[in-house]
């Protein structure tokens, strides 16, 4: 009898799941804005087909002009807005996303000619603030489960390096996303989004107005045709400034690498390091105009040694294109 009951329950659950598919192409607002830590990515319903990364209704893909580099991982970015909700433009800075919104970012690498999903990070705007959670994909690529403590996953990078790729733990999410004690999004700043995409959001009623942007960050693939300072400062903004700004994780360094910072000293020019330790490489200043080889900043970008390598989190290998862009800028200063 008992076994029969179990079978019946299982059958009902299966029927429920099957029935749910046609009726649930929409993300689950109660889960997104709720209080729990959902155990699987599927609980949110961000995707109609998560393994293929097909977004559900209300989930819009986007890209950043100049992205954060993470060992060359392919990144699939999505923003979710609940029905009828609108993001608000805030000048050239972060789009103001309402409570109930979410940002979703999947990290993938090629594996034997196929895209293999490694992790999906979600950033949920709940009533008490933003919450960042990492989800780790299984080997079968059927399910991503909450990985509060993070993980290490062997991958081969596009440069052909075999690494133990690091999925951050929940607290490490805050190391990059923390600003003045709160968790905030990093990527979707108006100046780092394409004008076309922003216009499309306004037209679709998902953004209240076209943001006023003085100068957009260059598109990374087109950096060769951008002024050296633009490419490098865009790179530093996207890869370093989330920690290196007042109120963030590396505030005590006094180094401020935000795009809008104009004080040469604050961005490292003839600035002595504070707590660089052996990361100073016997050099005196973060940036020495005309001399990348005498500048600490690119040396730390070239290192893969914990305690020396910058950024501290999110990479095991060297972003040669990033180093090149930064060195080109320093050489021309």
């Amino acid at each position, binding site marked *: 009898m008992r076994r029969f009951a179990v079978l019946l329950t299982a059958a009902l659950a299966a029927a429920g799941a099957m029935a749910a598919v046609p009726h649930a192409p929409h993300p689950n607002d109660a889960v997104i804005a709720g209080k729990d830590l959902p155990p699987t990515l599927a609980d949110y319903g961000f995707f109609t087909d998560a393994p293929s990364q097909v977004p559900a209704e209300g989930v819009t893909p986007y890209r950043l002009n100049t992205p954060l580099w993470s060992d060359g991982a392919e990144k699939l970015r999505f923003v979710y807005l609940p029905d009828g909700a609108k993001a608000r433009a805030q000048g050239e800075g972060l789009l103001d996303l309402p409570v109930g919104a979410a940002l979703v970012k999947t990290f993938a690498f090629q594996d034997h000619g196929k895209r293999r999903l490694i992790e999906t990070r979600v950033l949920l705007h709940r009533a008490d603030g933003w919450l960042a959670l990492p989800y780790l994909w299984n080997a079968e690529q059927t399910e991503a489960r909450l990985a509060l403590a993070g993980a290490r996953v062997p991958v081969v990078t596009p440069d052909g390096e075999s690494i133990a790729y690091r999925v951050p733990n929940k*607290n*490490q999410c805050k*190391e990059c996303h923390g600003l003045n004690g709160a968790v905030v999004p990093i990527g979707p700043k108006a100046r780092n989004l394409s004008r076309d995409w922003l216009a499309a959001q306004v037209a679709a009623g998902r953004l209240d107005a076209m943001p006023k942007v003085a100068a957009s960050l260059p598109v990374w693939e087109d950096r060769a045709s951008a002024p050296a300072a633009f490419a490098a400062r865009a790179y530093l903004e996207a890869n370093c400034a989330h920690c290196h700004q007042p109120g963030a994780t590396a505030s*005590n360094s006094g180094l401020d690498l935000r795009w809008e910072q104009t004080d040469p000293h604050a961005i490292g020019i003839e600035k002595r390091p504070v707590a660089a*330790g*052996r990361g100073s490489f*016997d050099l005196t200043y973060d940036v020495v105009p005309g001399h990348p080889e005498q500048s600490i900043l690119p040396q730390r970008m070239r290192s893969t040694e914990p*305690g020396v390598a910058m950024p*501290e989190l999110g990479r095991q290998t060297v972003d040669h294109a990033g180093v090149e862009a930064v060195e080109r800028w320093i050489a021309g200063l």
Partner: protein
Amino acid sequence: MKIAMTALALAAAASPAFAETRTVAPGDGAQERLQEALILAKPGDEVVLQPGRYVLTDGLSLDTDNVTLRGAGMDASVLDFTGQEGAGEGLLVTSDKVTLRDFGIENPKGDGVKSKGADDIVYHRVRVTWTGGPKASNGSYGIYPVESTGVLVDGTIVSGASDAGIYVGQSRKITIRNSIAQGNVAGIEIENSRDALVEHNLATRNTGGILVFDLPNLPVMGGGNVIVRDNLVVGNDTPNFAPPGNIVGGVRRGTGVLVMANDGVLVEGNTITDNPTSQVMVVSYPMAFTDKRYNPYPRNVVVGANEFARGGYDPQIEGKDMLLAAFGGALPPVMWDGLSQGATGLTVAPGVDGWSLNLEHQGQKTTDAKPGPLKVAAPTTTVDPATVGAPAELEARLR
């Protein structure tokens, strides 16, 4: 029996509501299990490390207020970061009212424990060791509270840091005591911080024993109101092994207590011996700077009565042989660069001997020195002990 039950219930009620103990054991998956316990801990909880060696590959972090991480002893519960593959420190704390006690950390690739913006933190009987001894490839700081108000470091042991063993930066209301800093470049360093009490520590075999610094271009400036008292600052004679380019790379081997810039520092009641360059050194910031907020001079620095024995016999100073000959084989205990601000810039207790480089302006090279005997007034200022140190509430957590 009934009375006992009631008493038990009362005792339970007196402890924080629903506080939970989360016990973690070493072994497979220690990285994930320990990190998960630190993430799931609620305010009031205690995460307990069972005895043993925890082999870790990544930095740990704690971001919840009012959590205690407790081991079975600094040699019994050891977090081993020898194989660390990522993160800038062994343990990062970013929440308030945290207590770290009774565990050891070995061979972190970067810093040992960093607590940033973590107010009211207690480090009690924590050990951070780079087991290969002094090496430039060791991490920078052992115990590293920064941008915090309320810091109590008690009964810790740090050795091998390639910068400072115990380093408190850009913080306020600090006590560092009963600790041992051995074989680091700087033993104990107070940088751009205020209201600090450094007492009853042993600083030995470092390049420099106890440093009180103020540096330009930091978000938090204006260090001062510091008491360094009743410490043993003995035999700090390890050649400087800081990776070149470091600010502490300029610390001369054999420095006992070094005060640079700062407003209001009292050095008193210490036993300072066998520091071959100088038992006490009081100097202005030696380099060029542009930060208008910065005052490079020592102000209201008082060297009171200390027990000075042998020292200054092998100074790492230009013109060493001439100096030793001039001063009769060993330099007197207090060295001053000759620069300070105000009538009370540097004062010393009657009977304290010293010498001065007699520099004439900030930034001047020591090779321009015109050495002579120290001639400064007796102290008329002091630092009020009631104004320094960690809040009493932190003290209560040790009991």
